[in-house]
């Protein structure tokens, strides 16, 4: 029998970016918050000896332990779903701070177009432009409404950036200047300008100067150490929950984190949650933490799992396209690239997680899609993250993947290969979805999630178009040889890292028939459960998710406070 613990105001399932923001906002207001976290407690001290590519980047030191829990995957309903046994296409963090500790910090707002994608598409091109099976829908909130929450996230984290020069793009005033210009970003900018595009520095959450945020948290500037993505930051310069929102929540005395504890279920009766059931993995003991509000903040994928396992919300049915939990799973259409080989050396070993330049000319609806066979688009960027030697072995076309020729070419090009990538939007389809796996179980015997996902012609055409743009820019930059990808995309391949930008599954919207959450991230079917996270995205854009995730978390925090005061549905 599970031990019942005294009731708290708010219980969080997971203490990453979303959990941290909710904790800080509500503890500041005097509410008691308990954060249940499956991993360990992390601190900056843990990152002092972390410039170790093998341990962190290859062996995935900071990621969720897959031996305990993973998901299964298949391309379509006729294929047998099999477990994602080792890390590949995406990585999910564990421990306080979650994936927010080892992210890059490339921090973009989604576009006004993204939040109203269905209406905008119909308005400009007519209903006929939306192919059969594509589940485009509006988010039930507009960019304008979200703007103040974006501003909050930007100020809390201290984003460094410059205005996007593209006509018609939202003009954001960032609290800090952009990252340094490097020979690599300068070359990209001059080439894209020559081609008539609108380059700018990528907005970065690697602090560009010492900064004190509105909560009084002071942090130092990024040192461009080159061990950023998949690593914690030894300077606290990369915005992460551990160096921003979590200390603020703790300082209030109203926040308690319970590490090494895994939530299995949200408990509920008659349309209201009573709390959560969790296991302390050090003892195997089960506890019930009762609360007035339950926040599911366990990362996109785990959010879906929690709700399905708790029988909360109506599971999605891909045959009829009805139901909501597991609906509109999307990813990042990110395989259009061009590698360029140069005659000169760049300082590629140096870099930062969000150091880069890009153009948005081919993202969203900034370009005319009338004669194109895909919707939405991609941002096209060059980054300088720090090319570590195990992962970076670029060789020109027709060089084999091992042996003397490979060795010589990969060594010679270690500081001479640049990559341009197109980060593409991934749109929702009736048959790309998440449900419970009928066969495989996690460490507690609960069903794993099952992902059914594949690229569509939409993705393939988008990646081909963007790959060609990348190659065009790379040639303009003066590469002596260019290797392009994006024109031969087959099935989604879960083996190779692409991005940890999984979205959808518990989406927000204006209509309870087609969405799980209202615009406060409050569940339509259970008024005291809030589910902020990329799981709320109705589709994925050509940007990294976390700025939008952060804005939604601030929005949810406001909603929770309202709910605690007035009760009932907020919309």
């Amino acid at each position: 029998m599970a031990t019942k613990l005294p009731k708290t105001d708010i219980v969080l399932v997971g203490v990453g970016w979303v959990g941290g923001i909710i904790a800080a906002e509500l503890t500041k207001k005097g509410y008691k918050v308990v954060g249940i976290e499956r991993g360990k407690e992390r601190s900056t001290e843990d990152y002092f000896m972390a410039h170790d590519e093998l341990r962190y980047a290859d062996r995935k030191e900071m990621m969720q332990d897959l031996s305990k829990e993973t998901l299964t995957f298949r391309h379509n309903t006729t294929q047998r779903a099999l477990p994602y046994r080792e890390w590949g296409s995406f990585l999910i963090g564990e421990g306080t701070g979650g994936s927010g500790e080892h992210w890059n910090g490339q921090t973009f707002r989604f576009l006004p177009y993204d939040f109203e994608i269905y209406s905008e598409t119909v308005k400009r091109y007519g209903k006929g432009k939306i192919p059969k099976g594509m589940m485009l829908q509006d988010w039930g909130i507009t960019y304008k409404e979200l703007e103040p929450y974006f501003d909050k996230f930007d100020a809390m984290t201290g984003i460094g950036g410059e205005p996007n020069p593209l006509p018609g793009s939202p003009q954001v005033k960032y609290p800090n200047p952009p990252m340094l210009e490097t020979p690599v970003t300068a070359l990209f900018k001059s080439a894209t300008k020559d081609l008539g595009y609108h380059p700018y520095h990528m907005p970065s959450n690697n602090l560009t100067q010492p900064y004190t945020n509105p909560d009084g948290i002071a942090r130092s500037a990024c040192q461009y150490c080159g061990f950023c993505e998949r690593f914690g930051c030894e300077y606290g310069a990369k915005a992460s929950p551990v160096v921003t929102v979590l200390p603020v929540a703790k300082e209030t005395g109203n926040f308690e984190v319970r590490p090494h504890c895994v939530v299995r279920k949200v408990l509920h009766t008659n349309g209201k949650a009573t709390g959560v059931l969790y296991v302390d993995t050090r003892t195997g003991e089960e506890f019930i933490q009762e609360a007035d509000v339950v926040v599911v903040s366990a990362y996109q994928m785990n959010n879906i799992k929690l709700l399905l396992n708790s029988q909360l919300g109506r599971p999605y049915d891909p045959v009829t396209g009805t139901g909501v939990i597991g609906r509109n799973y999307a990813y990042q259409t990110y395989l259009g690239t061009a590698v360029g080989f140069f005659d000169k050396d760049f300082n590629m070993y140096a870099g930062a997680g969000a150091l880069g330049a890009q153009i948005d000319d081919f993202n969203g609806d900034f370009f005319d899609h009338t004669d194109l066979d895909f919707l939405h688009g991609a941002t096209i960027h060059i980054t300088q993250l720090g090319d570590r030697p195990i992962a970076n072995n670029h060789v020109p076309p027709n060089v084999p993947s091992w042996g003397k020729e490979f060795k010589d070419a990969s060594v010679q090009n270690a500081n001479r290969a640049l990559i341009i990538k197109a980060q593409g939007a991934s749109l929702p389809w009736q048959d790309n979805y998440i449900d419970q796996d009928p066969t495989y179980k996690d460490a507690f015997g609960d069903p794993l999630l099952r992902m059914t996902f594949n690229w569509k012609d939409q993705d393939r055409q988008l990646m081909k178009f963007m790959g060609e743009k990348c190659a065009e820019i790379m040639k303009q930059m003066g590469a002596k040889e260019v290797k392009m990808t994006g024109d031969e995309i087959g099935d989604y391949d879960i083996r190779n890292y692409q991005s940890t930008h999984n979205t959808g599954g518990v989406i927000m919207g204006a209509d309870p028939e087609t969405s799980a959450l209202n615009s406060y991230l409050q569940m339509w079917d259970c008024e005291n459960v809030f589910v902020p996270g990329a799981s709320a995205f109705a589709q994925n854009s050509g940007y990294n998710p976390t700025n939008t995730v952060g804005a939604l978390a601030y929005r949810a925090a406001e909603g929770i406070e309202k709910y605690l005061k007035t009760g009932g549905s907020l919309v």
Partner: protein
Amino acid sequence: MTEKPKNYSRRDFLKTTGIATGALIGGGLIGGLVGLNVDKDDQHVSDTGNTNHEMGTNGGFQFFQNQREFNVISNATERIFPKDDIGPGAIDLGVPYFIDRQLAGQYGSNTKEYMQGPFAVGAKTQGYQSRLTRASIFRQGIAVLDEEANKRFEKGFSSIEAEQMDEILTAFQNDEIPMTGVTSAFFFRLLRTATLEGAYADPMYGGNRNMDGWKMKEFPGHQMSYINVIDKEKFQKIAPQPLGGM
């Protein structure tokens, strides 16, 4: 300078065992003959052989059971990442030792992977589906490399010529060699990745000896800051630094 520790060179060993210097035994590698710190000049048995790198056993084995297994992995990794005029290959970098250590630990026993059944063969794009751990896959892979060499050339893998090794490795890569519970292409992928890891991981893991992997790529290893480097037009050469100190 302090006195150099005694290094047992290959030549010393060969002298004492009565094997003539320069002889190539079986056309392949002779393992277990020399110490870890071989004299640089003395590294080669012969300049005409193709696979003439030294392999010491003084490092000891944590995973490999015998010299034969170690020699097979040494030769295979050397073909993937061979010594040439731009720098050392897998053997001189200590890659076989690196792999030995990795297979003896978490990586080899798949402690962080989901290893529950049922197991089934899936599409390649569904990833790792073997019930075997990486350690078992390597052990079997080594045995099959040897078997295949015997089948094709009537000699063990370590005794065949470099081109013959390449032929067999290519057949593994192309999934043409039957293995049990795993495909040869999967084993090859593991082997290739582990070789690159051993060439370039921090030297505390046993590979990337003398940081020579990093030196080839002009990678500075563990540095605290590049803020004074990042915007420089010219390439900035920085002496590499390991995590543990050398």
